[in-house]
């Protein structure tokens, strides 16, 4: 099962490596991991996309809670939530491909944020599957470079992760 785990963690040096080290030491999967400080700069919020059985997920959350720097852990995918991922993709945009790329970006509600004579950089936000569809929707030979942030997510409505 796919799970999105959100963690509030003390914004201290080494905090990220404690989490990453825990996953590698215990053989858990990390599909993606994003982290940045919250509105309270003493706290960071981390989002981890992982896979595992219910038993493994139970252990992951328990082990994360055991880390001294971790303030709170929640499995977002247990209930209603929204998730987004940002991708920047640099594509070749010459000749007839130039117009086609613009059209594809519009269809996916992407934005072209850098333009040269032969390339575009397209910014695309959405669930991971949407970004995947965009990639498979364009000619692979035209893709020069992609960078994705990994999933970040938030609970819907009253589900709030805060100290």
């Amino acid at each position, binding site marked *: 099962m796919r799970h999105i785990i959100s963690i509030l*963690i*003390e914004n201290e*040096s*080494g905090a990220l*490596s*404690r989490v990453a*080290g825990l996953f590698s*030491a215990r053989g858990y999967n990390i599909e993606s991991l994003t982290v940045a400080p919250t509105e309270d700069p003493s706290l960071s919020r981390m989002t981890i996309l992982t896979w595992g059985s219910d*038993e493994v997920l*139970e*252990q992951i959350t*328990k*082990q994360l*809670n*055991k880390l*001294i*720097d*971790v*303030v709170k852990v929640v499995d977002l995918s247990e209930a209603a939530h929204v998730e987004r991922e940002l991708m920047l993709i640099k594509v070749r945009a010459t000749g007839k491909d130039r117009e086609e790329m613009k059209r594809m970006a519009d269809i996916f509600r992407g934005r072209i944020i850098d333009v040269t004579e032969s390339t575009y950089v397209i910014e695309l936000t959405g669930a991971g599957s949407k970004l995947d569809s965009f990639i498979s929707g364009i000619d692979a030979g035209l893709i020069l470079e992609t960078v994705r942030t990994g999933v970040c997510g938030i609970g819907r409505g009253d589900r709030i992760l805060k*100290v």
Partner: protein
Amino acid sequence: MISGAEIVVRCLQEEKVDCVFGYPGGSVLHIYDALFKQDQVKHILVRHEQAAVHAADAFSRSSQKVGVALVTSGPGVTNTVTGIATAYMDSIPMVVLTGQVPSFYIGQDAFQECDTVGITRPCVKHNFLVKDVKDLALTIKKAFHIAATGRPGPVVVDIPKDITAQMCEFEYPKSIQMRSYNPVVKGHLGQIKKAVQILQEAKRPIIYTGGGVILSDAAQKLTELAHKLNFPVTNTLMGLGGYPATDKQFVGMLGMHGTFEANNAMHYSDVILAIGARFDDRVIGNPEHFEEEKRKVIHIDIDPSSISKRVKVDVPIVGNVNDVLEEILKLMDSGFKANPEVANWWKQIDEWRGRDSLRYKQAEHIMPQYVIEKLYEVTGGDAFITSDVGQHQMFAAQYYKFDKPRRWINSGGLGTMGVGLPYGMGVLMAHPGAQVACVTGEGSIQMCIQELSTCKQYGFPIKIINLNNGMLGMVRQWQEMFYSKRYSQSYVTSLPDFVKLAEAYGHVGMKIERPEDVEPALRKAFTEHKNDLVFMDFIIDPGANVFPMVAAGKGLTEMILAEDL
């Protein structure tokens, strides 16, 4: 204003630390200078940093206080890693202060630099790098707090040399609040009620306890509870002494080398009351085989991640063992009726006991089991027994009947050879004048043998019980049983003359080769040489094996008994 080094020492004084095990070096010279200028905190100079950490660990295991080690940067730190990992696996509270190169050199591959926080991260409860002298006192306070509360464990504080030179006001925080660390103490009352109900209905109950009982000082409450329930009790290797081994309800240690009755009672029980134990692979054998029997499991543990990790638990109770047992006892006072069928269960257990699975045959050579039995008699069953890792460790666990907690000091989780001698040092610092025997083998003892020198310097009168079979016995046992007797690298040739070796260090050496000499030699060591370290080299039967044995991957009841061979 005082220097960072003086702050370190003042913090130790505030924490009532009366001894530190350590080894000086460049990065900790300021701290050693500050130690020199006071006499409240005593320093024990070891011969290798590994031993400093083991000794601090045993200080803690034997006394409930937090052990402290102090080492320099780089190799000083890497030498401590085995000791830190050993303490971590057995949840031993400990603070390790490590020197670091000056903060402005960090990351430049400076002399004796290593990434201490990175290297120790996977084997500590927590670690810190102090970056500002203003944070030093608070960090050390946090280290002691984290080490000793919740599920205990080692904490490393890495202190760059320039921080120890900088001046700062000293104020030691009286208490501490951490928003990210608030371990649960009290168990959930609803869960406890459920547990008591299940205990009442149990027909074939067993109380299975581990190191958590020792760590939370709950031996007395456990005994009270077990007596009220009249249920059989088994201990893990780490739990020995948590329940009196001479009590009639005690069925012995369980697991890979557990007794026939303990393993059968565990397997065929209908209710397990697990207390401060974690169902590890050496305890329950093959988990699929274990789960073939349907039973209810109540599990009391301070660490939620230990619950339902290897065995599914029906009633989890997260909390400090001592507090939870108190709640259970209170509830039982308001009316508890044990199931009368428990009497039949006892009949079954007594039948299993009849197999006398720890029986062994005397031989021409000294049997290791015999040495432990005599050690038990000679010390009145009241010594601190430290051990190394291997056959001798299992013999000590099986044949020395521990009635009190914190008397059995060994590396259960990590299984670290070489701990025995430095463990003896740590015990003696916590309990000066106590009887301490280090049960070891000629393999293990050589892993930290340099500490004979430390023992001389501080007059630690440890009695080293060297069960010498000229082989790495446990390796040899597995090779004999599972590798068609291909004894790959399990012979130890070119052994030193241990008597001369002991004498070279200024100690007493004895070589004992005949069974009839065992007891007189032990008596002599513990009376005439009460104040000496005595290295007792027992030349034992090289073929002696540890039984019962549950082979790796086998079920708990699929034991090999001595009588089968």
